[in-house]
């Protein structure tokens, strides 16, 4: 790795990895609770959220965007619950009704409003711009110890690192109740655990991860990382702790490999330009899942028992 690695590739790889892990951690529980597609729904409604935030504030600053996206995620979750309960509609269809309608509203608003002066479009929302999160003030590995250069790290790195830390702490603190409520809701309820509150909290953490990761890397990675690394991990082990560890490994592997393949792969093939890093990270996570589905030791389920043990 030459001197240009630090300014051009280190920060995108770190941001991609942090975003991938931040999504994969809550994804483990979403998958076990058969709520995998809530991540899909949340990442779709981020678009109307940021469009409304832009229309209200007139800027594309990070904080209003993230607040808008977070608010949209809450509206979506409440809307899905309302449609499901009031209309007595099964959860999948309720989700489909709400997130497609909100996404359509976001696209319409975007087309109708003047965003020509700012960088705000659907493709940006989908693909992110991981490649552009470079650290130009770095001159080499030594810059990691240079306060002057460190001050100009891309702000996305700090945000996603803080988000990841918050998610890790929350998971560590609420690990036992979350695991209990996930594997045996009835038993958790008899213990007096607030089961529905735990479920809501999990969705909120997922929304936090989705919004923060979206800010840096776009929606595609968000959906892929919610599902693929935890799903692959689920095929490796029956133990929840081990599964979470595997999912972190897979998420990291996807982010690093995907970024490197997108950046350098085309050059190795003799082409000129890099391809979408976000798309490639999603594709690599899919390959990992494919390998786990073919060769994972627990791909058919636990030996003897149908479910994993915490």
């Amino acid at each position, binding site marked *: 790795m030459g001197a240009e690695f630090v300014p051009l590739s280190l920060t995108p790889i770190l941001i991609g990895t942090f975003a991938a892990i931040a999504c994969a951690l809550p994804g483990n529980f979403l998958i076990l609770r058969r709520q995998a597609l809530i991540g899909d729904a949340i990442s779709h409604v981020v678009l109307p959220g940021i469009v409304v935030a832009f229309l209200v504030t007139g800027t594309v600053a990070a904080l209003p965007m993230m607040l808008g996206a977070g608010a949209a995620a809450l509206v979506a979750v409440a809307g899905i619950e309302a*449609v499901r309960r009031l209309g007595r509609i099964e959860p999948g269809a309720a989700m489909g009704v709400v997130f497609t309608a909100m996404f359509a509203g976001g696209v*319409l608003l975007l087309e109708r409003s003047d965003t020509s002066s700012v960088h705000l479009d659907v493709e940006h929302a989908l693909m992110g711009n991981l490649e552009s999160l470079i650290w130009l003030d770095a001159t080499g590995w030594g810059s990691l110890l240079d306060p002057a250069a460190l001050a100009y790290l891309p702000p996305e790195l700090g945000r996603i690192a803080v988000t990841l830390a918050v998610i890790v702490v929350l998971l560590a603190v609420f690990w036992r109740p979350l695991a209990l409520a996930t594997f045996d809701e009835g038993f958790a309820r008899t213990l007096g655990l607030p089961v529905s509150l735990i479920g809501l909290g999990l969705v909120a953490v997922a929304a936090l991860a989705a919004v923060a990761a979206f800010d840096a890397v776009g929606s595609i990675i968000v959906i892929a990382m919610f599902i693929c690394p935890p*799903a692959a991990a689920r095929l490796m082990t029956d133990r929840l702790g081990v599964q979470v560890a595997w999912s972190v490994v897979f998420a990291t592997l996807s982010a690093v490999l995907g970024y490197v393949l997108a950046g350098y792969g085309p050059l190795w093939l003799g082409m000129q330009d890099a391809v979408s890093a976000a798309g490639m990270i999603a594709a690599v996570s899919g390959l990992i899942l494919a390998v786990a589905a073919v060769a994972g030791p627990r791909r058919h389920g636990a030996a003897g028992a149908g479910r994993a043990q915490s």
Partner: protein
Amino acid sequence: MLLDALTLSLGYNATLVAVGATLLGIAAGVTGTFLYLRKRALLSDAISHATLPGVGLAFLVMVAFGGDGRALPGLLVGSALSAALGLILVQALTRHTRLSEDAAIGAVLSVFFGAGIVLLTVIQTLPSGRQAGLDTLLLGSTAGMLRGDALLIAAGGALVLALVLLLRRPLLMVAFDPDYALTRGLNLHRLDLAAMGLVLAVTVVGLKVVGLILIVALLIIPPVTARFWSDRAGTVVALAGVFGGVAGYVGAALSATAPALPTGPLIVLAAFALFVVSLAVSPSRGLLAALLAARATRARVHLRQGLVTLGQGLPVHEGYTRRLLTRAGLTRPDGVPTEAGRAAAAAALRDEARWRLLRRETGTEAEALVARDDGLTDLAGLLTPDQLRALDARMARPAGVTP
């Protein structure tokens, strides 16, 4: 302007788009119903996202053979092939691993979509790909739609509808009562595959008009809306077609009235508006109906309690109950019961006493009756006159009441 649009007098292209969108809406509503009733609505999300790599590959193949990479028929064939592969992978993951279907759907949709985006960025770097405009297939674009494209979309929609008509009996049976369908010797797996094939066809046909991200809405929202209005299988399918068609038509017409009004989102929002109205006013499952039913129950409970109170010779203080009693002509405005009110009060009291007695009695018949006690039902409506007389004979006359 809007009237012009709705009466298809905004010119050739707008008319073409409106007709195409209507047919697409009908086909999507009808086929989506079969997925929805099988509780697999979001499978369409995987199918639609999985079309993207096929589009990119088809473009590259067509360019490699020296053709025009943008030819719609070629792109649609490519998208159909990759969507089919995605569908097979969802099935394989669900059947051969412990993953549940929602995880398989999410994995396939995100990975295929990511791979498709990678291909799109490859295409953008090609000299032939700079103006490929493949990204319009993400959100759909009807601006400058060619006559041939419109005909292709109309023909595709019509073909799907014809196939649905042909397969409607087994598909409906599987959708509404899979167990019964199984006992009738139908092959569930093959029929599910057929339904998914039809959904796949609609998705591919709809790529150009509403785009792959929003076609899901046309496959889910009209069936959900139709379900509010009927419990009969055939009616739900037909209504879903109607709602889808109306959404397609209204959305396309609206988008023709002004520039920068994208067709796809407007069609989806039109479908969503129909959904919201149905959620509110559907006669059996709507919010308004539920609200009215709750109000009626509340009034019955209050009226009954008021009558029992009057029967015990006590005054009614609660305002709502007093108004109910007065409006029914059972009390005068000052709260004193009328002739009819006294009779009704006595009847209510007698009925309460009968229920009390019944609750003390044993035997399956009495217990079955007590299970139906909601505090409102008049026992006289459940028992024959003979049974009532026998019950009354067993009952000591309640003190203080002269029937």
